[in-house]
């Protein structure tokens, strides 16, 4: 190929070959660098640092796991049985207003109140 041949007239194969040559030359122009003296110690420091942060994360995960298990146990043994057996609850939570009134004054029980129908006398027919 002529040295002064314009680029546009270059054969594609030649260009491709020249590119390959350039890339090979690039490899030689950027040789493998010699690592510094601190390279390997820095790698081990990085490994140790990651191990430490991993251990902290693992510890947190364990704490969260134990807390979750304790909470689940608490729910199973204490809270859920309470909801399932409302008798054990105090009246303030279970009784309604009428029940509270009735309990407070059993003598003057209001007969028309719901739940007290049996106390109402049947209406007699006029004689």
């Amino acid at each position: 190929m002529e040295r002064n041949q314009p680029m546009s007239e270059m054969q594609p194969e030649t260009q491709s070959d020249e590119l390959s040559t350039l890339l090979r030359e690039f490899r030689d122009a950027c040789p493998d660098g010699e690592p510094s003296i601190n390279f390997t110690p820095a790698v081990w420091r990085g490994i140790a640092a990651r191990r430490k942060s991993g251990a902290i994360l693992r510890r947190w995960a364990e704490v969260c796991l134990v807390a979750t298990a304790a909470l689940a146990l608490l729910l199973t043994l204490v809270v859920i049985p309470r909801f399932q057996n409302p008798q054990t609850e105090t009246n303030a939570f279970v009784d309604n207003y009428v029940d509270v009134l009735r309990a407070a004054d059993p003598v003057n029980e209001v007969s028309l109140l719901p739940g007290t129908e049996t106390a109402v006398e049947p209406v007699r027919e006029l004689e």
Partner: protein
Amino acid sequence: MLVDFELIEKAKNGDDAAFGQVIQAYRKRILGTIGRLLRKPEDVEDVGQEVFVRLYYSLDQLRTPEVFEPWLYRLTVNAAYDYLRRQKRRPEHRMSDLSEQQVMMADAMAGGKAQAEEVRRTKIRETVHGLLDKISEEDRILLMLKEVEGLSLKELEAVYNIKENALKVRLFRARQRVLKAFGREETAAMKTVLRDGPEQPEES
């Protein structure tokens, strides 16, 4: 392979001394590859250290020692991607000025064959980086691994975990784009340098 399979197995089983030997064997090659993939020599060692730290914690996932080198290249490529992504988020700091300065320093050097060779190498580096800027980061790294690092298609298949045909297509397209840029006038001077070899300094 720069080390025995047995050494890889030992390192995989938690032998720190064996892992130290693996670092010794591969650090120069990995640093060289990273140096060619990135442009900031000051960051090459940091990325190289990250590669070996990742290797340490992922070695137990290596199926067989035979695929160790592609595995290491995959870690290298991923670390380089991560670095380049981080760099994209940061503003550029006088990159072009810096390289120009390097060229000027090289030019300013006194005559002599070694200096002339250094100037030529700097020009080659600048030209190749300029050409590879025309393609995407992924294609640039792929082309580098194939053309500069000399990895075979089989090895690249293991590195990228994609089919050989897909790799060939990507490589072909990347190369075509680079070739297009290479055909422009601005690289003509570079071609002359390639044909003629280093310029000889004038004897005084």
